[in-house]
């Protein structure tokens, strides 16, 4: 379970939001909403532990994430704005590295299957620099299919640059993860066809 209390975020010398609280339980899908610049990405980065909060507490299963980082990061999958794709490597090499770097032992066959499933069967061995924006996005998202045992998925604008079918597939994958007891926290400006309408957290309500 993820708990956030009294969270405040300082960007430069401007306080973006304060007193933000949220609670995410197994099986829940939370959509972080709000206009541009309100601090959605900043909130996600705080929750993942990449950035440090100005004030407040973030707890994973009752323990502060700043005190015990490793168990939290073992249960976390974060896909940010930047897709973490190197142009000189193929999608397969990128995906295998992403898994290995995160500390997951993943079978190369499983990586291939994940890329085929996300619609990159013909681009497996091309260098990533020739891929389109949507295809690069998919390489990053392929990690979702290899990360079922990571409970908490934090996704920053996962639907950007994807076509309609890919959006539907992704929404289904997220719903399935939640149905299996996972948690998903995401930002999006699009309406995605989720099986269960997600809970919405409006960051704008906590803006300063």
């Amino acid at each position, binding site marked *: 379970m993820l708990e956030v209390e009294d969270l405040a975020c300082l960007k430069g010398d401007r306080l973006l939001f304060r007193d933000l609280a949220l609670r995410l339980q197994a099986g829940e899908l939370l959509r972080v909403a709000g206009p541009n610049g309100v601090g959605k990405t900043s909130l996600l980065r705080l929750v993942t532990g*990449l950035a440090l909060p100005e004030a407040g507490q973030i707890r994973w299963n009752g323990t502060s994430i700043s005190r015990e980082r*490793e168990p939290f*990061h073992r249960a976390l999958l*974060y896909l940010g*704005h*930047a897709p*973490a794709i190197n142009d*000189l490597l193929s999608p397969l090499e990128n995906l295998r590295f992403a898994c290995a*770097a*995160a500390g997951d032992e993943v079978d190369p066959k499983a990586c291939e299957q994940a890329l085929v499933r996300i619609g990159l069967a013909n681009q497996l061995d091309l260098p990533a620099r020739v891929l389109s924006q949507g295809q690069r996005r998919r390489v990053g998202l392929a990690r979702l299919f290899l990360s079922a045992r990571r409970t908490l998925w934090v996704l920053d604008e996962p639907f950007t640059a994807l076509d309609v079918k890919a959006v539907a597939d992704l929404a289904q994958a997220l719903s399935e993860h939640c149905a299996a007891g996972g948690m998903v926290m995401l930002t999006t400006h699009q309406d995605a066809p989720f099986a269960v309408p997600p809970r919405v957290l409006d960051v704008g309500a906590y803006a300063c």
Partner: protein
Amino acid sequence: MLSTFFAVLRRDLLLAWRGRADVLVTLAFFVIVVCLFPFGVGAEPNQLRAIAPGVLWVAALLACLLSLHRLFAQDHADGTLEQLLLSSEPAALWVAAKVLAFWLSTGLPVVAVAPGLALLLDLEQGALPVLVLSLALGTPILGLLGAVGAALTLGLRGGGMLLALLVLPLFVPVLIFGAGAIEAEMSGTGAAAHLLLLGGGLAGALALAPWACAAALRIATD
């Protein structure tokens, strides 16, 4: 636990191979800088022999500096660094892997061509093993200290220039003992003391620099 280390090492070496033009530019820079000296100071063999240790070491140091800013820049820009910081493995481990890959693709070629350039400057053949050994011990220290500087200047405007200002003073002791080892060997006093100090410096940098670098990277992505 070592799987992250080897994954990063393998990937960075693969990237160095795919972008080998960058590696060759560094090596060519080293060769050209050394070759410039005879034009500048004249082709008098005694004079060249006297300045050879310093010239080779300063050129190696500059070649290393030239490619340092690339160490984390690409990973920072494309988001890979964030993913690495979110790994449940200790950050010092993969930082060490990155520095090792950097040294293998930048430092090792410099160490390999240095004896050839030393002959160009008429360095005594007896001093060549000491030259190779001092560079082999010293360039990893440059990589480790430089990595801390590269992490601290990551994402800053004019980071390359700042990096040079930050790390060049830190390179001075390495330069003194590196070049000093060759001079000591030429003068007959033996290079053991200098080489031992370089080895000690390497052990110290190896133990401390990855942690400092990891801390700096966390600040840079905050």
